[in-house]
């Protein structure tokens, strides 16, 4: 870190040199004729150009170009597209300007409202569960002898593709008619204890949505646990010892010392999870394909575009999703910058 700062200073120093020299030229030299005046004017521009940090722009340019091409352009194109009707090309012959029709659809259509309700349900249950369970596991596993092994096992789902995970869970939730051998883990357990098999992915609106969210939580808890665990290990032990010596019980230590120190990390992980869950698509796509009132926003966007061919509506949904995610991204970036600033 310090070496980098040093280099930065020297570069600034170099930048100053031409400025000073040009200043001395224009200041000392008297403009005798027109050509000399023009020369000094040109020199002024040169000086101004020299003041621009070309090096830094050169470094930033590739990133800006790529961001513009793959992020800004699609976002702007989607925004424009959201005011046009069905049809595939942006300004093709088949595509008509429809004003706010798509926007009205997104906020009034019953399926869309259902998708938004479900996404809200996901945000609430999923982010609280993953961060909560992650914190709990991080703190509890710290006291377990085989911590590394247990943590690895819990972390594994994060490494499996979401589609793979959904297929695994499709078997867990599988349903067979009563009387036929249950091949699904959950229904086998239910039937073993004398119950009737349950259509886990069919029973709306709570059972199936909760089941889908459980899959998501299973997938992401390990990720939360690992990061929060790292933060927990960073808490100076003497701090906890001091609290204990002062007579605080384990709960009080956790509540008043550990938790406040974990809070910044948990907040970052939490916002990451919210962004994650708003984009969530694969689990719903594989397990129910959005049927039986389980559709979420991202899923609806896919269907409008690729099943129904309405790119206007799909773009509108994409922009809505972007607007929903944006505040959390800004929050995360601000926190990140604040942390970096604090460290520097």
């Amino acid at each position, binding site marked *: 870190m310090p070496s980098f700062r040093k280099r930065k200073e020297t570069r600034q120093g170099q930048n100053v040199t031409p400025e000073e020299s040009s200043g001395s030229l224009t200041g000392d030299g008297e403009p005798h004729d027109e050509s000399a005046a023009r020369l000094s004017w040109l020199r002024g521009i040169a000086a101004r150009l020299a003041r621009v940090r070309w090096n830094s722009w050169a470094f930033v340019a590739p990133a800006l170009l790529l961001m513009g091409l793959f992020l800004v352009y699609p976002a702007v194109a989607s925004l424009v597209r959201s005011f046009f009707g069905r049809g595939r090309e942006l300004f093709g012959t088949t595509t008509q300007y429809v004003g706010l029709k798509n926007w009205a659809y997104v906020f009034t259509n019953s399926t869309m409202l259902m998708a938004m309700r479900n996404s809200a349900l996901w945000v609430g249950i999923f982010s609280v569960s993953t961060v909560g369970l992650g914190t709990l596991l991080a703190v509890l596993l710290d006291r377990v002898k085989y911590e590394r092994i247990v943590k690895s096992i819990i972390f594994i789902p994060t490494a499996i593709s979401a589609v793979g995970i959904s297929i695994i869970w499709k078997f867990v939730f*599988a349903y067979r*008619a009563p*009387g036929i051998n249950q091949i699904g883990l959950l229904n086998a357990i239910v039937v073993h204890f004398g119950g009737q098999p349950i259509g886990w992915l069919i029973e709306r609106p709570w059972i199936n949505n909760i089941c889908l969210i459980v899959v998501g939580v299973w997938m992401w808890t390990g990720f939360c646990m690992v990061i929060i665990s790292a933060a927990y290990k960073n808490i100076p032990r003497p701090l906890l010892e001091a609290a204990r010596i002062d007579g605080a019980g384990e709960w009080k230590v956790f509540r008043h010392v550990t938790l406040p120190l974990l809070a910044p990390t948990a907040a970052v992980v939490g916002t990451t999870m919210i962004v994650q869950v708003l984009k969530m698509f694969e689990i719903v796509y594989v397990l129910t394909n959005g049927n*039986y009132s389980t559709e979420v926003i991202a899923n609806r966007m896919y269907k409008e575009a690729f099943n129904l*061919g309405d790119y206007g509506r799909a773009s509108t949904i994409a922009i809505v999703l972007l607007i929903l995610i944006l505040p959390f991204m800004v929050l995360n970036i601000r926190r990140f910058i604040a942390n970096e600033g604090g460290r520097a």
Partner: protein
Amino acid sequence: MRKGFVVLLALTIVGLAAIVGLAQDKVVTVMHSWPGAQAPIFEMIVDAFEAENPDIDVQVEIVGQDRVAIMQARLAAGNPPDLTPHPWIGLMKEWADAGQIVDLTGLVDTSEINPALLPIGEYDGGLYGLFIFPNVKSLVWYNPKEFAANGYEVPTTWYQLQALSQQILADGGVPWAIGLDSGAASGWPGTDWIEDIMLRTAGADVYDKWVNHEIPWTDPRVKKAFETFGSLFSNNYVLGGSIGALTTYFGDAVTPVFTDPPSAYMHKQATFIQGFLNDQVEGLVAGEDYNVFVLPTITPAATPDGSVPLLTSGDVISVFNNRPEVIAFAQFMTSETAANIWSSNLGELSAHVNADPTQFDNPITALAQQMLIDATVSRYDGSDLMPAAVGAGTFWSGVLDYVSGIPLDTVLEAIEASAVDAY
């Protein structure tokens, strides 16, 4: 280090040579989503074509149940396969309107396609689909040995079918096995049920109006067809009830009829299900271990001449790139060679003009082919004729919603709203 470089260089040269070598072959790309039994048989047709045309390389791409979405995305990106066999006539018309599909008029000799089936692929004065593999959908599959053992008779009227269902229920059995799950395409087996019922309760004329959206989905005649289908569930005729039907994969749904003892006694599905059945239960003999009867008529007024209406579907070949080798493969798909490989290996039907029911060893295939020829009233699968937003969208999900307990009026209003947008 140096050795490694030499090896790498050699490999690169070999690789480039291989690419150049392959490039000399003309390539035709085909995309299909036939599962299990059908895929290797299609490969046999491809082999036969390549044997006749050694300079053409046919590359087959098999995709999952979400093929509508994949095709739409590939077309939007300007990167479709050269051709694809598909049943989506409604979508085919949308592609034709958008100019994304090749008009085969004059490019392909259609003299080998059954003239009665050819018009399915025609639209707006052009030819956009070559009918290759037909299916008869109105068939009910049953186990004749179990029927005989229990003294059950094959029903020829709807009344007899209801009486039989009651009898099976009274004997402690389950009349119907239904499977509506099909991944991203879930719900379509239910649309077949409703279409078959619609032909029998409202008649072919009303069916056509319904398919063309000349009557709304909230029409009492549409409602009646849904309710008739729903009565199977409310009467407890279905294995596992509505959840059983919703969670069962369509290809697995026929199996419970042929287990010992059977978990259900009847299964309605198209001719193609033979491939699935023989895949899952070994050693079954067509006509002896399994047989079919036609779903009987329901409302006499809907079928005045007393003949049983036939619901059909099938695959047409659509071409997206007009190159000689692509047209050659499309042409080959209409040939007797291709038709025979398909029907003799799978027990499926033939759209070839010379197809003769007596040529089939399989009695069920022969019967179905005869039905295809004899039918006085036959209609193509309505959900495939409708615009994709309805036929491959809200109609599918609507059936699932209805079976899972959403009030019928709500379901039909939702489909109607999407139909108003789509037509």
